[in-house]
């Protein structure tokens, strides 16, 4: 059935995504790590929909849609930031600093 191993793989991929977000400063790589986390979650949905029915597949579609939308808008934001800062290094983007 591969339920346990699938979930474990999903967990490892998700953790790697978190690690990437924490470690990298490049905004685009950050985005890719977020995509990685979304993929890990998708794997969970697919694995569990063998038990709970086709709702999991539908949810995967929604996640993909959101991911696509997020990628489009997020990359547009990065473009705008790059135009302004000439960099996508997050160290340089700290408008929220108290």
């Amino acid at each position, binding site marked *: 059935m591969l339920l*346990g191993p699938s979930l474990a793989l999903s967990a490892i991929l998700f953790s790697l995504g978190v690690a990437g977000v924490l470690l990298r400063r490049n905004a685009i790589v950050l985005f890719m790590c977020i995509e990685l986390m979304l993929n890990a979650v998708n794997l969970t949905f697919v694995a569990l929909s063998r*038990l709970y029915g086709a709702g999991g597949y539908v949810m*995967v579609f929604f996640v993909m849609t959101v991911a696509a939308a997020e990628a489009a808008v997020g*990359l547009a934001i990065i473009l705008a930031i790059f135009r302004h800062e000439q960099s996508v290094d997050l160290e340089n983007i700290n408008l929220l600093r108290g």
Partner: protein
Amino acid sequence: MTEVVFYVFATIAVVSAALCILQRSAVSAALWLVTTMFSLAGIYVLLGAQFIAAVQVLVYAGAVMVLFLFVIMLLNIGHSTPDLRGSSMVGATVVVVGLLVVELATLWRYTPRRLAAEITGTPLANPAALFAAGQAAQQETAARGVVGGVAAPLFQQYLVPFEATSVLLLSAIVGAVVLAKRKV
């Protein structure tokens, strides 16, 4: 046989994901991410979700990652610049992610039987009875084909959320265009 293929794909996925987050170059990172997504598509096939696997390759590995690569090249930041954070952040990351893995790795041993036992609280629960919906879905797939098995709930039960995503995508398009334009 299935398990062996699963573990091969799993290993590829984990290794390429690790390389993705460790590669200096954004272009290599993107390419390693594509590798991860391809192997995930393989795992989807193994899990009986062939249609999802196809969409994964088309949308993710195809469209989304091409968009990434396109932006990387447009901004001309493909060549390597050191962008790892400081050592204290690396240490914190190792600790936090380590804990996360420890917490989640307990999922490794789960089988449908054990899951059913935990959910119902009795060790002798029948997973077939508890997860009847999954059985029904598999029978539906067997009867109508892979696409039909997904399409039926998508266009019947989840029709309204599905239509809502079209609005989401539309607004994302408008947003991306507005943000990316030089002068509004």
